[in-house]
């Protein structure tokens, strides 16, 4: 069964004061399908319509027009039924009980979703072990670090064995180690094939690590819906080496794998965009051989770069 | 460069100007309560004609002015200082080059200024439209009431400040604020005119700041008693309570510095 199926899903909002009202389109005719076991990254800049789409898919918000089925259900009309089959994690709002020990929040989630005791124990034990939560199970949620809390949030969302796990900015604000631990866990869970992942993020490494498929949305429209590997080959993934020089020199053209060179500060700073195929260390060595370096920095590609690249490409598939 | 306080008054005003829904809702609630309370007083006066100098006109004026003053004088819901003490944010406030109490008073007066337009005048207008209010006979009363209301706000503020500052020691001022919220209305003459109370109760209340909150400004407006005496009493209470607040703030600050919150 298809997990998510939408047809021209559309949402408008009325904004502004009473005097000057106007309609704004947040999500414009989004049509997509997600199959079981898939891991989909849902990307786009701030205000692109990601959260609005997720709200419509989870039954929190009614579409202005269009149609959606999630796990075969109408999200708004069968909200409670749907809630039994999906798990949702919001990076910035908590589903845990603030002043209770973490483990009691888990108990309550088990009770809310009527998870049979045996299965609940098994599921919880597995999460506790994989996410290394034993040391803080008895700690009240308000005393947890953000990383610990997020591990709790993800566990709570998985206790009832949902078919779909929706994660809205799950790694926002986490330190690198916490991010990595969470990504590892999610990919393990997804790899077993019984949970479909839909995740929004600003963090491209999240996508690299977790998603096989990427949907890029901007201004409410789907710009790209493709396999990550295809996408990586076509667009972004380009990193940039920013070199600071001790004296101005002409543009550093002709280095292998460098696709674009831009010169700033009268030639004292140059930005070399290079493909994934290039080893950054070798590139730095090559630059150092040609110019006196004062400092180097490597810029990872951002979602915004990706979107810009998509717009810049003539043949970009508008949906 | 001006002292920050006039700007704080303006900021207090503007901050509340954006909550028009709340003002509208507050006025609705105050009008409903005015109607209910007025009905009780009118029912009493229908039997007696006049009680302790209150005829129907004075009684409804008392009710509607009182309903308007609730939002200006403010008895409930001021927990900002105690919460900032509890969270430790008060350290930021104390490190600024101002007198914290004066700054908060300025903000509160600005809030009250907004409330005069948004919360006092509408119930008064409603009362004037449907009831025979007793308007001041002497023009000077308008000037006196213009002094009595800000003084009532100042007395209310300085008590709220003291109660909130108790959080320096108790950490949780909720209980103290709840008791104040429950008692100040009845002790200040908002619920029923204090002159209707038994004489012993009046004698006790005369030694407290509570009548300065509602009964005094309403008495000034309805021209009962000597307005100058009433305003002088308000002034004395405001000065005493503000001074007490300064002492408590200094002690609380020292405690914070010594114990590190």
């Amino acid at each position, binding site marked *: 069964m298809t997990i998510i199926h939408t047809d021209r899903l559309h949402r408008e*909002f009325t904004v502004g004061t009473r005097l000057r009202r106007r309609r704004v389109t947040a999500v414009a005719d989004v049509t997509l399908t997600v199959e079981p076991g898939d891991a989909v990254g849902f990307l786009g800049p701030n205000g692109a319509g990601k959260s609005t789409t997720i*709200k419509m898919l*989870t*039954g*929190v*918000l*009614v579409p202005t027009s269009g149609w959606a089925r999630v*796990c075969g259900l109408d999200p*708004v009309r069968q*909200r*409670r*039924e749907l*809630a*039994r089959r*999906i798990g*949702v994690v919001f990076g*910035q*709002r*908590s*589903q845990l*009980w603030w002043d*209770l020990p973490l483990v009691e929040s888990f*108990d309550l989630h088990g*009770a*809310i*979703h*009527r998870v*049979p*005791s045996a299965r609940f124990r098994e599921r919880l034990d597995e999460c506790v072990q994989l996410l290394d939560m034993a040391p803080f199970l008895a700690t009240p949620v308000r005393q947890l670090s953000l990383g610990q809390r997020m591990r709790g949030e993800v566990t709570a969302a998985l206790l*009832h064995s949902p078919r779909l796990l929706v994660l809205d900015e799950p790694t926002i604000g986490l330190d690198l180690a916490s991010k990595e631990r969470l990504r590892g866990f999610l990919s393990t869970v997804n790899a077993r094939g019984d949970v479909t992942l839909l995740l929004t993020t600003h963090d491209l490494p999240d996508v690299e690590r977790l998603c096989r498929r990427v949907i890029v949305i901007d201004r409410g429209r789907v710009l790209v819906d493709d396999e990550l590997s295809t996408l990586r080959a076509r667009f972004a993934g380009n990193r940039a080496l920013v070199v600071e020089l001790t004296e101005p020199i002409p543009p550093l053209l002709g280095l292998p794998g460098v696709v674009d060179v831009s010169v700033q500060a009268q030639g004292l700073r140059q930005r070399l965009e290079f493909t994934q195929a290039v080893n950054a260390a070798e590139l730095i060595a090559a630059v150092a051989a040609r110019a006196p370096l004062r400092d180097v920095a490597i810029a990872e590609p951002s979602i915004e770069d990706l979107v810009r690249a998509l717009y810049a490409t003539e043949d970009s598939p508008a949906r | 460069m001006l002292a920050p306080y006039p700007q704080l008054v303006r900021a207090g005003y503007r901050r509340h100007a954006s*909550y028009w*829904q*709340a003002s*509208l*809702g*507050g006025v*609705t*609630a105050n*009008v*409903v*309560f005015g*109607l*209910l309370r007025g*009905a*009780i007083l009118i*029912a*009493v006066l229908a039997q*007696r004609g006049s*009680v302790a100098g209150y005829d129907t006109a004075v009684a409804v004026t008392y009710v509607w002015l009182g309903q308007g003053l609730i939002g200006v004088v403010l008895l409930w819901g001021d927990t900002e200082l105690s919460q900032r003490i509890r969270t430790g944010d008060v350290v930021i406030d104390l490190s600024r080059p101002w007198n914290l109490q004066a700054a908060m008073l300025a903000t509160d007066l600005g809030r009250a200024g907004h409330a005069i337009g948004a919360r006092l005048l509408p119930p008064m207008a409603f009362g004037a439209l449907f009831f025979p209010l007793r308007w001041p006979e002497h023009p000077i009363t308008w000037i006196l009431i213009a002094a009595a209301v800000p003084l009532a706000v100042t007395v209310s503020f300085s008590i709220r400040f003291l109660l909130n500052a108790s959080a320096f020691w108790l950490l*949780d001022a*909720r*209980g103290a604020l*709840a*008791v104040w*919220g*429950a*008692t100040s*209305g*009845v002790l200040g003459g908002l619920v029923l005119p204090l002159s*209707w109370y038994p004489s012993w109760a009046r004698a006790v209340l005369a030694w407290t700041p509570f009548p300065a909150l509602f009964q005094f400004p309403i008495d000034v407006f309805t021209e009962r008693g000597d307005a100058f005496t009433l305003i002088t009493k308000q002034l004395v209470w405001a000065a005493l309570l503000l001074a007490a607040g300064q002492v408590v703030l200094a002690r609380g600050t020292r405690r914070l510095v010594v114990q590190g919150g």
Partner: protein
Amino acid sequence: MAELPPVESSPRHRSVYPRILASRLRSQLAYPGSFALDVVAQIIGQAIELLGILVVFTQVRSLGGFSSTEVVLMYGLAATAFGLAILCVEQIEKLPEYVRTGQFDVMLLRPLSTLAQLLTADLALKRLGRVGTGLAVLGWSLTTLQLDWTPVRALVAATAPLVGAVILAALFVAANTVSFWLIDGQEAANSVTYGSNFATSYPITVYGPWLRRLMCFVLPGAFVAYFPALALLGRPDPLGLPDALRYSPPLVAALTVALTTLIWRAGVRHYQGTGS
């Protein structure tokens, strides 16, 4: 459609709400000193309303055709009912906060009724202070009045506070549903909730015709204390309303709950229609 995971019944399932509540109560009692003071404030707050009635009766011998003890009976019924109501549903006042912080979305994402979740998210235990005061006053007036007890009157005395609590609780929820439409609508809701509490504490005969229609019948405050009191006192209605009304509160309570459910559903639909 794929098969659902089998839903088995085990003891833990049926007890979601009590478990959430128990956890909240524990946290309320975590600071016993502050909690005790809160309860005391509730007792004082409730007692002061009684004080107002007593002050009025220092000036007159009857109010709206009722003696002081009779008015105190109405007050006792109203206070107990309001105390119970607010004890159970005060949490609804947090609705604007839930909407603003997005916490209401989290509730929509659980397979439970949103209203049930919101109401059971906490219990205003301190309001027991009000219930206690109300019960004490009610007990005092019932014994002082030397009523002519019949089984029906005993039944009315036992059920009136509960039925009144249901009516006031439903009103409380219905009024606060306004927060779905007006995020700062809390104070407007107060005119219905606390206004009803005040209105029901006095005989409805003191109000003018319009105020009575609005605060006693449109908002069914008259059925909280006034009509049950008439039933207990066994005296004719000074307003000449039919005697059957004094036994109608349970019906009115059922109606009020039904209407409130509809209003709540409309509120949630509106929320889902606009987003936060």
